[in-house]
């Protein structure tokens, strides 16, 4: 039994080494004095210096972040409204068909989304570039926001809304004072996921971007096709740190949500207990 346990650990360790080796390999050579990913000749920061001096690359990073930020912001607004629309739809046929339509973009392969959006923009004579990329990112981020916000809306009890209405709140007040604070965690998760979707995307952007506009993924692809360039390794070092920060940030949001939920549950339980004792 004991030895079997160790075998399973060995297996896990091998899988983890396999998972991380390529990433570490990439980052290690970002400090190499050579110009290829072979024969580590000496330690240097010159590729990082070259990266930070590369104005074209910096412009691309800014553009990528701008698209990610704007698209996730707009997608969060439209997605939240969509979730509220679905939540107030009482006919289950309509509701289920809207939900299925919602999920189409989530299961479609990226190539199909990219190709069909390209046909769409061309048919409407929308020029390819920043605008088309931004619209596409908004479009493929909306369904995930809906899926993040909808469960929060469903958790909300009808009696709370009735109480607010009985106490004389207007519709606007109910939305801003009751519904909105309650679903905020879902909105934040949705925004965050939309942001990472946008940063991650390559295939859709590749299809709908023209010659003038580049995002980071498209640029990496273009450079990687030309062969090894240790500036990309330096870039991957920077992006690895950024990914780490994002993961930590996301888990912070998650645990915060969970502790809030736990607090909520504890509160409900104590209320139930108080209720029992008074009887």
């Amino acid at each position, binding site marked *: 039994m004991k030895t079997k346990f160790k075998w399973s650990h060995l297996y*896990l360790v091998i899988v983890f080494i396999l998972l991380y080796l*390529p990433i570490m*390999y990439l980052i290690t050579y970002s400090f190499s004095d050579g110009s*290829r990913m072979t024969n580590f000749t000496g330690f240097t920061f010159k590729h990082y210096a070259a990266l930070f001096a590369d104005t074209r690359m910096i412009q691309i990073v800014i553009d990528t972040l701008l698209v990610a930020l704007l698209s996730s912001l707009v997608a969060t607004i439209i997605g939240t409204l969509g979730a509220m629309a679905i939540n107030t739809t009482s006919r289950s046929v309509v509701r289920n068909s809207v939900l299925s*339509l919602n999920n189409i973009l989530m299961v479609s392969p990226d190539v*199909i989304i*990219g190709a069909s959006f390209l046909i769409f923009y061309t*048919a409407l004579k929308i020029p390819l570039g920043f605008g088309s990329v931004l*619209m596409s990112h908004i479009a493929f981020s909306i369904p995930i926001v809906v899926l993040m916000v909808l469960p929060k809306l469903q958790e909300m009890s009808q009696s709370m809304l009735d109480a607010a209405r009985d106490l004389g709140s207007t519709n606007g007040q109910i939305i801003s004072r009751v519904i909105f604070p309650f679903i905020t965690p879902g909105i934040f998760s949705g925004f965050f996921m939309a942001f990472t979707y946008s940063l991650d995307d390559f295939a859709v952007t590749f299809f709908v971007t023209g010659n003038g506009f580049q995002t980071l993924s498209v640029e990496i692809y273009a450079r990687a096709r030309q062969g090894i360039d240790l500036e990309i390794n330096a870039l991957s070092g920077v*992006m690895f740190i950024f990914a780490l920060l994002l993961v930590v940030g996301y888990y912070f949001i998650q645990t915060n949500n969970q502790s809030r939920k736990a607090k909520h549950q504890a509160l409900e339980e104590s209320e139930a207990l108080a209720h029992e004792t008074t009887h």
Partner: protein
Amino acid sequence: MKKSTNAAYYIPYGFWLIFFVIAPVVLIIYQSFFDINGHFTLSNYQTYFSSGTYILMTVNSVWYAFVITFFTLLVSYPTAYFLHYTKHKQLWLLLIILPTWINLLLKAYAFIGIFSQDGGINSFLGLFGIPAQQILFTDFSFIFVAAYIEIPFMILPIFNSVEELNEGLVNASRDLGASSWQTFRQVIVPMTMSGVKAGVQAVFIPSLSLFMITRLIGGNRVITLGTAIEEHFLTTMNWGMGSTIGVVLIVAMFIIMFLTGERNHHRKEARHEN
């Protein structure tokens, strides 16, 4: 009152549904009936089914996706299973998820370095006096890199299904005299099947369409449905034929979803659920 606010919520969202969900799907089907000169025709479908090249390409693409999914599953199932029994499993899980946050193209790029003539693998082999091998631009490299990228997306759903497994049933099976192998085959595997199906779905469909990996790692030797679509749309500009292959890919997607049950969650969602 309630009706009208409902309608107001639907305005931006409905606009999105019509213009960015329904319209593109309709357009790609519509486009598949036009030839390169813009004439309405069924010739794209005719070409697809009659010329052996397209059928062969589709069969090849499905075969590659199958091999990738198979190896991914082979590595992922034990990983997910063993992970369940580790002490700090949330931390381990976080470590599995972290690589999925690294840009896919950077991971592919890493392998250009590792697999190249004077790269990591060949210098390692060189230590044993083995001459440099051509690894990059082979079927092996394509399958290896695709499987590498997909592994976390297979581990997560299987891990979740192992977590949901009722430990009591496993113990009951052992108490009733089943061997470890019997317990595994007849209790654990059937009860984690939903995770395996979700994982297969999350890996198989992208494997049909990962065109960037075929370009960067497979050279131009490996052509998948995704590569063919990209080629027709962005290089030869034959959108009609590209759309036809797109329709084939959509059909393939539905077949896979039908075979693996309709747990239609996007794979990227999986990494946020834990």
